């Protein structure tokens, strides 16, 4: 019999311990480089939350990670590990750029926006379709196919940017800059409500879309028939088939939703910040989505918090690199890796010890417990 840990330990204490371990190891790395870890932590937090513009950037990055985190989470609920969010986000950028390039001269942003959202979702989903179909129909492992599709996406996008999207006479592999019809408004009014200013941060309304997506994913997964089918397929595929849930359809739909969410990530940097489609714009956000989903326990609320944590790392890390010349931006990548390692792969490291602890405590309080049944699982 597996000993059940109290919920607050499972969802609160264990992630916290994992996170602390990750940051302790990150502190050792800072020491190794020859800087003071406490001072580095202070600079990082100050850079991320210390002033309006910093918070703006933190939330701007968090917007990306909410989308990719949701993307990974929906697939995980179906028992699929989609590590192709990066590629799906990249290809989704085509949809955003196509809508903006077609409409930005003629209509205001709020007409372009729905088309861009649809375009992003459609292209992201399309890029997830082949791995999804191969997994469902032919049993090709979705992890491997999505890795391959990330690389195929990056080759495809460079080809498209250079041969199709690049305006004549330009050298950089990117589209032209969009007119105001392809630019999302900033959320500076939200910051003014709190009496601070956004500064130059590109925090824009796609953040609100991200929150909407969180709500929609929650609704889908826990309140709809399709969500039930997705979760059942994820937890026990055999039982799902036995219960009459069409496996191929469920897997393909879950992956399409996952790809669509990843694709929508492109709205934030493309329409909200750079106003053009650039080479490798996702910049690893798809992979951060894995960490975000893991830390957020695949739940939209958890994902929002985890996304803000990683937004803090990206923004605060950039400021840290500026303040401490010995620490480059690569520190963010290290911390990211450590968080994925300790909160993800080594997630159960403390579980046996904690289970032992709570087990002993329960024995003392509950004398009817049978000894020897509380073995840590």
């Amino acid at each position, binding site marked *: 019999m597996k000993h059940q840990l109290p919920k607050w330990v499972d969802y609160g204490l264990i992630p916290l311990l994992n996170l602390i371990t990750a940051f302790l190891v990150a502190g050792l*790395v800072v020491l*190794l*480089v*020859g800087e003071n870890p406490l001072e580095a932590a202070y600079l990082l937090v100050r850079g991320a939350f210390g002033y309006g513009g910093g918070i703006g950037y933190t939330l701007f990055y968090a917007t990306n990670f909410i989308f990719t985190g949701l993307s990974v989470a929906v697939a995980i609920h179906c028992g699929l*590990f989609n*590590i192709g969010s990066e590629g799906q986000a990249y290809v989704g950028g085509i949809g955003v750029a196509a809508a903006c390039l077609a409409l930005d001269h003629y209509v205001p942003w709020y007409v372009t926006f729905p088309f861009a959202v649809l375009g992003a979702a459609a292209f992201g989903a399309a890029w997830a379709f*082949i791995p999804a179909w*191969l997994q469902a129909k*032919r*049993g*090709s*492992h979705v*992890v*491997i*196919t999505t*890795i*391959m*599709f990330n*690389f*195929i996406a990056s*080759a*495809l996008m*460079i*080809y498209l940017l250079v*041969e199709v999207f690049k305006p004549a006479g330009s050298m950089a592999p990117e589209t032209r800059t969009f007119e105001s019809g392809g630019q999302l408004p900033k959320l500076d009014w939200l910051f003014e409500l709190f009496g601070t200013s956004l500064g130059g941060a590109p925090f824009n309304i796609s953040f609100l879309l991200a929150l909407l997506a969180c709500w929609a994913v929650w609704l889908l997964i826990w309140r709809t028939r399709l969500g039930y089918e997705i979760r059942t397929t994820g937890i026990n595929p055999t039982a799902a088939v036995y219960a009459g849930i069409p496996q191929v359809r469920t897997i393909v739909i879950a992956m399409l939703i996952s790809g669509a969410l990843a694709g929508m990530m492109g709205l934030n940097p493309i329409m909200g910040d750079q106003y053009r489609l650039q080479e490798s714009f996702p910049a690893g956000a798809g*992979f951060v989505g*894995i960490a975000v989903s*893991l830390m957020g326990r695949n739940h939209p609320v958890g994902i929002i918090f985890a996304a803000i944590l990683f937004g803090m790392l990206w923004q605060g890390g950039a400021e840290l690199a500026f303040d401490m010349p*010995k*620490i*480059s931006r*690569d*520190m*963010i*990548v*290290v*911390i*990211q*890796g*450590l968080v*994925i*390692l300790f909160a*993800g*792969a*080594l*997630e*159960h*490291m403390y579980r046996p010890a904690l289970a032992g602890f709570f087990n002993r405590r329960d024995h003392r309080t509950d004398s009817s417990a049978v000894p020897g049944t509380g*073995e840590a699982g």
Partner: protein
Amino acid sequence: MDFLSLLQILDSTVRLSTPLLLAALAGLYSERSGVFDIGLEGKMLGGAFAAAAAAVIFGNPWIALLFALLTSLGLGVVHAFASITVKGNQIVSGVAINFIAAGLTALLGQSWFGQGGRTPQIGQEARFNPVELPGSEALSGIPLLGPIYRDLISGHNVIVYFAFLMVPATWWVIFRTRFGLRLRAVGENPAAVDTAGINVVWARYRAVMICGLLCGFAGAYLSIGLSAGFVQNMTAGKGFIALAALIFAKWRPLNAMWACLLFGFLDAVAIRLQGVPLPLVGAVPVQFIQALPYILTVVLLAGFIGKAVPPKAGGVPYTKER
């Protein structure tokens, strides 16, 4: 295309497929034992950086190689601990190792050498240099075979020969020794192996550690064999191409060699084919050739050309029954 430029292409094919081959064989040990490894890339990168940094400091390629092996082995042990001891998710662990290696090599490179994440240029004496095989000049007069021996077979560095020797060696270890039999068995049916009184955990640990060592060779080859120093993210997806090659080879050593040679060949011709019209298809975009290894692997995985069946217990942590 004349004979000499064909020889040149084949020569660079051998050079470019060597790191792929080492990494693919590395993955073969790990995955045959039931531990998926998408962290080949990170281990190679860590090895490449350690080799370059040690070569700068000690000026000796063998010491540099030792550091590469230790670094890559260390990352391998982390992966083993996460996926065998703690029974964590092997894919997540691989992703984490790739991130940590990418970040740490760039960070330490910048902080130790201050050249934007590069190591300083490494001189001849601290690198693995081409080895002239005996008689390569004397035999070069023989038509056809002479130049092939001199230009294609001779004149590579030790790690290249080591990599290609590892192919039969791996075949022998995996298919002809007791160790290999047990390694394959823990990858297919660990419970049965456990019943036979063999330590599943230790068998898997050894496989993952061999994987770490071979990735270390691949990394050292990149930074002090193929080039003269470390640059940021110098593996540039080679670990994943090796993974693709391993799947393409259906987890068999000899097939892995052919797959790596094929992918290395694609890499070697990609630059030459830029803008050159081919018969039947016309000019092929260079990006297409770069993506071809991945596309071929997906087609194979789809089961349209043969079927790639991974080890049965791959990716599943083994829990001893109580």
